[in-house]
């Protein structure tokens, strides 16, 4: 928990962050970390910390809330107030935390199973409320922690430990789902575009409302091996080819090719932030 200042104040007193040193934001005493060789979650973590740094967020004011699974374990490495909660529920915990403490910057790290399967109900209602949270969904298309079972984002025909004959279930398009549910900021990026991903996360954090960012990560060791997708670089390309995204219709400002991997900012919506709206009603009711 060492305090290293990488921020510098300019002549106007405005704090601008210095060069990004990832170790300033990590609990390096926990190393070696738990992630498998080739896993994309570490890159997602780097992009997140980079974005936090460039946004000038004080670690003392930063709360990271995660659920269960590989994505859930990532938060512990961040030198902040970190909460590793129950399976599927990080958004519900974060809702309580942010409403009680609007002064905190609350960022949720979740996975495709945690967020879309067991936590699906909380996701759509978090979108509807539009509380000022940033939700990073690390989509590795499988339940890695439990041994590589099928998830709501496992591509069709892929093999997992619970789809031994190949996956016959259709895939959730998380971004389309959350845009439909009312999220005010929706974006997607691959781990292989780290600076772009960082910028996307920055935009999400800056958005005063519920921001959803899907990070296309990869599970090389389990999902990749089961499907013979090669080393991590090859696997990322294979996943890119696997990934299909339908047109978003009118909610999307940014056009993109249907039936391809849509990345970047996919939807923006201007609507009142939940906490501010609640506090305004308190004021009006007095």
């Amino acid at each position: 928990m060492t305090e290293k200042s990488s921020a510098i104040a300019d002549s106007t007193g405005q704090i601008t962050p210095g060069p990004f040193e990832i170790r300033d934001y990590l609990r390096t005493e926990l190393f070696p970390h738990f992630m498998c060789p080739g896993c994309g979650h570490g890159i997602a973590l780097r992009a997140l910390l980079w974005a936090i740094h460039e946004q000038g967020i004080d670690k003392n004011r930063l709360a990271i809330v995660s659920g269960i699974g590989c994505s859930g374990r990532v938060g512990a490495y961040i030198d902040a107030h970190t909460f590793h909660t129950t399976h599927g529920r990080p958004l519900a915990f974060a809702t309580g935390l942010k409403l009680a403490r609007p002064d905190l910057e609350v960022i949720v790290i979740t996975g495709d199973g945690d967020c879309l399967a067991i936590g699906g109900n909380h996701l759509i209602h978090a979108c509807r409320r539009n509380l000022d949270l940033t939700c990073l969904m690390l989509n590795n298309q499988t339940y890695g922690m439990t041994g590589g079972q099928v998830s709501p984002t496992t591509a069709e025909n892929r093999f997992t430990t619970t789809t031994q004959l190949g996956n016959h279930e259709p895939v959730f398009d998380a971004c389309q789902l959350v845009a439909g549910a009312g999220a005010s900021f929706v974006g997607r990026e691959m781990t292989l575009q780290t600076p772009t991903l960082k910028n996307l996360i920055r935009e999400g954090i800056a958005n005063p409302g519920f921001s959803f960012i899907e990070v296309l990560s990869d599970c090389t060791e389990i999902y990749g091996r089961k499907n013979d997708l090669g080393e991590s670089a090859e696997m990322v390309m294979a996943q890119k080819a696997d990934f299909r995204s339908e047109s978003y219709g009118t909610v999307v400002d940014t056009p993109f090719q249907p039936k391809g991997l849509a990345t970047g900012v996919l939807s923006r919506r201007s609507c009142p932030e939940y906490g501010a709206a609640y506090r305004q009603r308190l004021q009006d009711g007095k």
Partner: protein
Amino acid sequence: MNSGNQLNSGNRLQNLQGNRACVLGAVAAGCRFYAGYPITPSSEIAENMSLEMPRNGGVFVQMEDEISSMAAIIGASAGGVKVMTATSGPGFSLKQENIGFAAATEIPCVIVNVMRGGPSTGMPTRPAQSDIMQARWGTHGDHPVVVLCPWSVEEIYMQAIRAFNIAESLRVPVVLLYDEVIGHLVETVDFSALQNPQLYERKWAQGDPETFLPYANPGDGVPEMARPGTAFRTHTTGLTHAEGGFPTQDPATVERVMKRLLGKVDAHPELVEQVDEYYCDDCELLIVSFGITARSSQAALRQLQEQGIKVGLFRPVTLWPFPQQRFLAAAAGTRAVLVAEMNAGQLIQEVQRHVGRDIRVQGLQRFDGDVISPQQIVDCAKRILQDD
């Protein structure tokens, strides 16, 4: 609707519904965050909270389900606010996993369960006392929990305050458990003796953040809590964790931290234990009951005494941990113990466990959605003493 502030403005006598008293007690205890989901027969608590929280500068949020309500109050409590949720049987089942998370991470919270008939959807508008084992053992794994059982509207108010005091002092989930009858009962509450209750606050982390251990035992079994927004940046996890807050599977460490976790409630009987006793010193028959059944027992007690029968009443106000020593003292010298409860026989198992084979233990159970009447208890008491 009456304001909570009215309590301090000279209006000492008030007609209140039990669920309303629960809300006023919570507000008086300093509750400033409520998350809930509608469920009979507890919904009046959420309805009242939706006005009392904003009125007192707090937050009310109706969540999408029971699970997220429990999660949201834990999240808010982690942020440093006193929190509560309320539910009934089906919702209490859904909350269990997160109650275990609160117990393991030692995040204070109060859960109200207004008991209705079960199992499953059961009888939503009928009373029962059949969640008492669930209140103790509902979530998986060994865990600490405190359960308080009021028997009147006034006592709901008082026990709500106590629930917060215990939750905050010991960093433990506290269940305020009462039946539908008490919840919907309207009684006059005399607030003259209830002004300015003593409130206990959580111990916050102090000293050097660099060397702070969020789950170290400061001696009384209750660690200091790190407040977000300060330099005490710590990790909170439902994984079994060492004193530093990070996961461990080292057997010696796990045993040490679990012993502290499981022992901290028992280490504070002065705070936790509360019983109500009537004529327990010299009775042939001891009645054990709680909630609305204890009200019936009290009426039965008068009838039996008028007939010259020596009978006493032992009412565990703190149901869990069960007040074993106080109960054994009350039961000493009696010929028999009668356990009256609105379920198929739950508390009787705990009572039998303590008295052993020396004293006869008889149950009076009712689980048809109706209250045990004083006459039923009188008849049962006479039968026991005749048989003996």
